[in-house]
Every structure is written in C-alpha cells, then in structure tokens.
C-alpha cells in the first residue's frame, strides 16, 4: 500500500549526507543519465508520465521538451534550470522534510535535468524561513561539488525573503532577478523567455527529486505505481486533527480513507468535518469525499484539485468560518498588489468574513462574498486570486448554514475555539 522511494533512506541518521545517500544507490542514476543522449533522457521522463508535483500537474518531460535546442535564436542563449523550493502553500509540507532528510536526491535530479535540457547553471530557490533546510542544501551541493559529481554545472542555492507569491513561477523568476516578486504576463512562457529572458525550466522539488528513480527504474517501473493518467508514487502530507500526522509516500490514486485507516485515523473523539486535498487553494472537501482517488483526475472529478497533496483534516470542533477567514487573511496579506481584483477583492472579503465570524453578518454578506469571488476568479493576473476564492466558494457550498449562523451568533460560541486545539480534546473541549 505504501511505496517509500524518496523517503526510503530517511530512517538513517546520516540520510542527508553523501555517504548516507550512496548507501541507497545515490548518484547511480546520474552515471547512467550522463551516458544517455539528452533527448533520450527527455523522452524517458515523458514516457514515465511524471507530472509536476508542485500542484499544477503539468507533464515534466513535456516541459523539458519545450526548451528550444540548437544554435539559433532563443536556443542559442544559456539555458537555466530553476527549482521551485519556495514551499509556502498553507498545508503544504512535503518538500521541506524531503530537503532536510535527503537534499542529495534533489541535487542528483538537478544535475540529471540540466544534462537533459542542456543547462550549465541551476538555481534552487528555497524560501528563507527554514534555515536548517537551507543549511542542508548548501551542504549537499558543496559535498556534490567536492566529489566531482556536478561537473561544470553551477548550482546556486538562493534563499528567498518571505513572499508566498514567489511560488508562482514567473514571480519567482522576477524575484531571482532581484526584483519584487510579481507575476509576469504570459506568453512568452519561461520555456523560451524565463530567467534573464532565456530558456528556463521551472520545476518543483519533488518533481526533480523523482527523476533519479525514473532513470534507475525506467518508465514501466514508475508507471507500475499510480493510475493510468497519474503515474508513480508521491508524498502525501497528513495534518490536522489526525492521530499520526506526517509524510506518507504512496502511489497516486490512494484515498484519504485508506490513508486514515493506515495511519490510525482521526484523533480520539474526532470525526472528519472538512479537508483540503492539496493546500488552501484547493476547494475543501468533506467526509463524503473520503473515497475519492487522490490523483489529478479523481480530485478534479470531485470539484477540487490534487494540488500539493496537503491533506489538512479538520474535525467537528472546527468552525469553517474561522478557518476560511484565516485563509482569506493569508491571501490578502500575500497578494502582491499587481492586479485590482486580487488586491482589492481579498481585502474586502476579509472584512465580510470578520463580520460573519463575529456573528454580525447579514445574508447579503454571503451573496456579496460569492459575488466578489466571481469577480476575482479568472480575472486575476495569476493563480493566487483564483486560489483565494477556492476555500470561500467551497465552504459556502458545503456549509452554508454555518455562514448563515454568522448573521446572529459568533463562531467562537458555536465552536469554542479551545476545543479544536491539540490540548483541547475533541469531546472534553466541546462540553467546556
């Protein structure tokens, strides 16, 4: 049921060192990849069916194939690989433990990917707010350089400075060029005009870290896990009111019910009320959706998105209005301000939700909230605006009564907040 590949060495106390990684066949894939023609390598990743693990699910090999090759025009410019390690989507916590426990699998993937796309300079853009992960990456790159594993490739570990928007790939590129991290108009796309207006691949950490195993195991091996259109294994991050939160590596298509059954379920006295399949930007689901296959198609079929597989589980003690307000405050704080619908819309939605949380809203507030979402969704410059509407629209859809209660009773009276805390105890707290 579980298929540890990325996590298989994590139990060793030195898993983050070159020696520890080599014990689990680390850098064997690199030797094999180096002997391969770059185009064959791209073909292999395409054939494997690996899709981007950062949320969008775009086929990784296809992205690599978009990089113009040759000696003329854009193709003649330097090519770059940029790893998006700016893990900041609320609920998402997979790349961080991966890079802390085994940064070398990412470094190996980087070197292989650069061989494929013919890049001589790679950047790992990691959010700045996780110092020890940064240390581990710096250390791994240095070890790989000292062991002559990276050849002429230059790998720069670049720490961000606190901005969720930089997880958006074009904002990340602007940030990496030393500007405010604001998204760019597309087209042109990064594949032709990315970093320094040169051909650039931007890939998520887990996507790149999956590449060495594909080189060693082959496309058929990778495809023996997962589903027809969502192939392979992946990291699911379980959090919230569950007994054993953590990282669970399993084939794509496993269900939340299976993951909960395996891991011991919800905390004592808890029932699942709502959950996110892939972070706060993916519409929330309920206990009705426990058997939805957690792959790209399955979750889309349930009206949400697989996203980053960040399974945040909330129990019956949780006020959905409180949860949604807090996420909306996040989007308002992180909106880069470039486009009006997102900048203004998120601000006003916070004001309305605050009223509803305090039991001082009106029925019209709920309509205004949904209307504002309508005006943000699809009208914003980038996906941040769309993401901001997801929790609101889905929560009103599943829990309209709770929003209606916000017209007369404060959320903290309906759902005493202490009962939701780890030390609240689901049943004890609810009676307090």
């Amino acid at each position, binding site marked *: 049921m579980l298929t540890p590949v990325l996590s298989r060495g994590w139990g060793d106390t030195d898993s983050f060192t070159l020696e520890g990684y080599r014990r689990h066949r680390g850098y064997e894939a690199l030797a094999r990849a180096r002997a391969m023609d770059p185009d064959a390598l791209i073909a292999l990743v395409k054939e494997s069916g690996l899709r981007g693990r950062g949320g969008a699910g775009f086929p990784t090999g296809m992205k690599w194939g978009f990089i113009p090759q040759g000696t003329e025009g854009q193709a003649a410019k330097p090519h770059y690989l940029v790893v998006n390690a700016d893990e900041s989507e609320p609920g998402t916590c997979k790349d961080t433990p991966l890079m802390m426990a085994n940064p070398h699998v990412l470094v190996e993937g980087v070197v292989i990917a650069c061989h494929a796309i013919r890049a001589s300079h790679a950047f790992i853009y990691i959010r700045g707010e996780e110092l020890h992960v*940064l240390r581990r990456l*710096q250390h791994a790159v240095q070890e790989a350089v000292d062991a002559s594993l990276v050849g002429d490739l230059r790998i720069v570990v670049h720490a961000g400075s606190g901005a969720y928007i930089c997880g958006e790939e074009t904002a990340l590129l602007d940030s990496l060029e030393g500007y405010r991290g604001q998204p760019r108009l597309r087209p042109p796309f990064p594949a032709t005009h990315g970093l320094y207006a040169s051909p650039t691949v931007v890939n998520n950490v887990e996507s790149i870290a999956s590449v060495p195993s594909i080189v060693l195991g082959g496309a058929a091996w990778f495809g023996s896990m997962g589903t027809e259109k969502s192939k392979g294994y992946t990291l699911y991050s379980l959090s919230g009111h569950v007994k054993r939160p953590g990282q669970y590596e399993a084939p794509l298509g496993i269900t939340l019910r299976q993951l909960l059954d395996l891991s011991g379920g919800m905390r004592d006295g808890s029932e699942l009320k709502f959950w996110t399949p892939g972070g706060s930007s993916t519409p929330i689901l309920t206990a009705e959706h426990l058997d939805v296959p957690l792959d790209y198609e399955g979750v889309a079929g349930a009206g949400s998105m697989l996203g980053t597989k960040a399974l945040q589980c909330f129990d019956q003690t949780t006020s959905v209005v409180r949860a949604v307000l807090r996420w909306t405050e996040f989007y308002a704080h992180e909106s880069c301000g470039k486009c009006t619908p997102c900048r203004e819309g998120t601000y006003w939605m916070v004001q309305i939700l605050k009223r509803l949380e305090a039991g001082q809203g009106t029925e019209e507030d709920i309509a205004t909230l949904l209307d504002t979402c309508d005006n943000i969704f699809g009208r914003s410059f980038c996906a941040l605006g769309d993401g901001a509407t997801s929790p609101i629209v889905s929560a009103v859809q599943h829990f309209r009564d709770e929003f209606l209660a916000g017209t007369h009773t404060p959320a903290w009276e309906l759902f005493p907040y202490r009962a939701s805390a780890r030390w609240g105890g689901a049943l004890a707290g609810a009676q307090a």
Partner: protein
Amino acid sequence: MAASGLDLERARAEAREIIARYPQPRSALLPMLHLVQSHEGYVSGEGIALCAEELGLTKAEVGAVATFYTMYRRRPAGTYHVGVCTNTLCAVLGGDEILERVSERLGITHGETTEDGTFSLEHLECNAACDYAPVVMVNWEFYDDQTPESAVDVVDRLAAGQPVAPTRGPRTQCTFKEASRVLAGFPDGRAVEGVQAGPATLAGFALAQSRGDAAPDYPVSEAGDGPQEQEQA
C-alpha cells in the same frame, strides 16, 4: 561609518562575493539584503546605499525591493526573532493561544521588539511544517509540536541565556544576525547538526517498515549493474 554597526569594508567584500555567484549582478540583491541584516539586524539606510552602489541601482530601486518581502525588517529585530504560525491549521490546533501567551510573557505584540533588544515577535504565515502543528520559529529554526507552556519555556530559557535546541535544527539556537548570514549564502558549518528527520516526517516510512510495504524493486538493467540492493522489504 562608526555611527552604525555596518563594517563597510567587510560588507562590501562579502557583497562582491555574492554578486560573483550570479550570471547577472542584480540577482544578488535579495541575498545582499540578508547580508545587510546579518551586520545590522535590519535593513538600514546605509545598507540600502551599499546595495545600490554595488549594483548600480538607485536607493529607491533597492528600497522598493526591500519593502516587498516580509523577512526584511525596517527596525532592528531582536537577538531572537520569535514567530508563531497562526495560519489556519496551526491557529486551529492552538497557535492563536500560543501567540497570546508568548506575547503576554514578552510584553510585546506582533511587529514589536523588547526594549532590551532580546526578542522581537510576529505571527507567521504557514511555515511548511503542518505535520508538526502548532509550530513556533525562532530565527527560522523549527520548534515543532508546541503548547503555550513549551513555547513560553523556550523564550524563558533564551532570556536566561540557557542553551536551547530547536526540535529540527542545530544543537543550539543561533542569533538573528547569524541566521541572516546563512541566508546570504555563507554557511555556518552546522548543517550536520541535529536530526535528519522528525517523527512526523518518518511516520509513513516507519509504517511502511512495520507493514512490510515497499515500492517495487528496480528492474535489473541490461547493462548488468550487478545485484540489486534489497531495500527494506
């Protein structure tokens, strides 16, 4: 120059080292601002001027970037910059209560620094450790699975000058300036300290071991790489 904590000569030499890492100089700006904070504990006017000069930018251009990112501070951070995650999941699991209690204990609220300069406090957005919620960060080191009591204990011990170790991090807590130096790309040699992974990180791994679950073995390659290593079956 003597008026501030900025050793201009040294900072300039370090800034040039950073610039040399990049194909285009301006890419060095973010790490250079971390560097300024490693000297001064915040982004000072003098630091902005230095960045502008080294990169051929105006001070306004540098300031526009510095004010966009939340990690750059316009006033000195405390020696220990404490962040409490209050994004939805951490807040619901108790982060709000932790922030309240730590704030009470330190006598400061979001965005403030104690008079003696030891602590600054802020509420954080999601810090990518939701499986360890509620989470507290001190100078961007992880303090996992916190309670109001444990978080107050951490700041009490830091205040008393006692050694404190993050749950996933080096053996002792570093200062804000030391952290900023690592962020600027100057390793502090502490990468090998601390655990490789916390318990939540290993939850699935441990479960797979106890169940005897494993990914399929890699096929034996035609190139004849020899016997396959048996991963934990």
